[in-house]
């Protein structure tokens, strides 16, 4: 049975499944959905976060904050997402994540795609954690955090690093605590079809992130993962370099790093990379976000990491450098914050 079949099988079994325990972002989850992108937990905690099916029509009325949108309803301790054709999700008070599928055509895989990223991200925010758009990787017991909004190349770069002996800590969203520790989170890399092809992966054997998408999930079976919180050693915000067709610079395919941002620039940049500024604000938690982002900006220099635009070039650019040591990278002059 191939991986794709195994996952379909798991999806079908979920209908009758009992609850399973996982750990993510430093808290334990008890879920009625199978979540292969999370680390299985053997510990038993008295009050895990409950992920459970629910009837959204029974949810209490919410007076949404004016930061709400048509799909996202926000209030104190409340985050609700309604996606037409997919389903409804509700995170409340950092304790429960409820979901209801739109109709029977919606698979568990569809549900968990949004429950695990947006849903658990919202739960983590409600629990007072600093949640950033970023992918964290580990080597030698130290973590590197690659910040960047979707489609900036975090997963491709992380996959290239995993091929070089690094381990994945968390992808898409990453939690950094007040001690500068990075917590294991979502352990799945999502690669688009063109990236998978260029990286030499047989995408026909990979499960799509969701049915019909040409975007594939690399789960812990394919990706070495770290299972313990680890100290953050380097912090970067990713930038894609536009390839210059006329460039004769032999170093054009290299990764480059900027000088550290000023603390004020770093704070603004971290705030912009939060998952999501709107979510924090809409739940009345923005002050905490600034305190946590400020503490991180003081603790750890933030640099821009410019990566080549091409997927092959990105992998080649890692030769001879060490992301744990920014000094090993070529300097990127004149780069400021993205604030």
């Amino acid at each position, binding site marked *: 049975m191939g991986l794709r079949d195994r996952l379909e099988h798991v999806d079908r079994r979920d209908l009758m499944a009992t609850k399973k325990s996982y750990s993510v972002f430093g808290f334990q989850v008890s879920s009625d959905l199978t979540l292969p992108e999370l680390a299985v937990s053997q510990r038993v905690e008295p009050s895990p976060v409950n992920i459970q099916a629910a009837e959204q029509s029974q949810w209490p009325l919410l007076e949404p904050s004016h930061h709400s*949108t048509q*799909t996202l309803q926000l209030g104190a301790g409340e985050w609700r997402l309604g996606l037409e054709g997919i389903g409804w999700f509700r995170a409340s008070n950092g304790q429960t994540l409820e979901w209801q599928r739109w109709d029977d055509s919606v698979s568990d895989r569809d549900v968990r795609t949004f429950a695990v990223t947006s849903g658990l991200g919202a739960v983590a925010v409600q629990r007072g954690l600093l949640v950033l758009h970023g992918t964290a990787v580990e080597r030698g017991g130290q973590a590197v955090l690659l910040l960047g909004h*979707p489609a900036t190349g975090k997963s491709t770069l992380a996959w290239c690093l995993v091929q070089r002996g690094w381990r994945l800590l968390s992808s898409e969203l990453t939690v950094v605590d007040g001690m500068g520790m990075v917590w294991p989170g979502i352990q799945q890399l999502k690669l688009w079809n063109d990236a998978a092809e260029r990286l030499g992966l047989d995408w026909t054997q990979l499960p799509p992130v969701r049915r019909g998408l040409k975007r594939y999930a690399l789960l812990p079976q394919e990706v070495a993962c770290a299972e313990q919180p680890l100290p953050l050693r380097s912090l970067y915000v990713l930038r894609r370099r536009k390839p210059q067709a006329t460039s004769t610079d032999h170093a054009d395919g290299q990764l480059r790093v900027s000088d550290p941002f000023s603390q004020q620039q770093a704070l603004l940049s971290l705030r912009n990379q939060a998952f999501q500024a709107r979510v924090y604000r809409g739940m009345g938690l923005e002050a905490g976000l600034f305190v946590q982002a400020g503490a991180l900006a003081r603790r750890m220099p933030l640099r821009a990491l410019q990566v080549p635009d091409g997927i092959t070039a990105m992998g080649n650019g890692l030769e001879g450098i060490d992301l744990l040591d920014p000094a090993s990278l070529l300097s990127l002059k004149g780069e400021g914050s993205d604030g």
Partner: protein
Amino acid sequence: MADSNAYWYLASYPKSGNTWCRVFITELMRLSGSSSGETDPQELNLNWDLNTGAIASSRLWLDDQLGVNSCDLGFAELDPLRGAAGGSAWLFAEGERYHKVHDAFRSPDSRGRPVVSLEGCHGAVVILRHPEDVAVSLSHFYGWSLQRCVAFLLDPEAALVPDDRHGGQQVRQHMGRWDQHVMSWVDQQLLPVLVIRYEDMLTKGPETFGALAAFLQLPTDGDLVEQALANTSIGRLKALEEKVGGFAEKPQGCERFFRSGRSGEGAEQLSLEQREQLAAGLAATMERFGY
């Protein structure tokens, strides 16, 4: 001035004068002292000041509005949601109220719904340019052959970022044939429309840009409009582009964003057969707008 939450779309097929309009708006606001950001009091900086608003297809903006990673949605899921993105008074950052959009008003995947938010929107400026000239400009911009550009203008499936095999900073933007694109905006009944032609921007500048300023509830003082127009002439924009070492919106391989700006290049550079192909495919709409 308009209320602080009002916003408009600047809708056009690519390479039809949209950026010129945005630069003009920025310059008019700068000259009239109504810019909200920090701007150079002496001169417009193309790469710093041109923050008239997010393009409606910005993935970052959509993700923020929808609360999910839009890479996890297929076209048939995303397009119907796009019009719902932004139905709040906090739609756009303060001062960023003029939003470029290259999408057709609806897409084949949007279930008949507009792909842009209507709530709070005060209208759409629809910018047209002769399709022969669009073909030449597209050719320089993307490095495509003229024949490919002619075929693109006639392609009912034409889109920007059309490939579903990779992500990007912008989502797929369905445009369809040039005439379908134009009519999708001009004939929709949900937003007030001001139609302006690129050719009139060139030859009847004060009148055309004055109408633009009035529609967008910007200052309409004749001297200000003329000064903003003079400061954003194609010659001036070419000089400004050189000064900033390349306009940030210029794609890979494109030598310069602001190139000639002339009208009539299509008639000079397209073959008779190519011109006939465009005329045959787009005749009704071209005639309607005096082409």
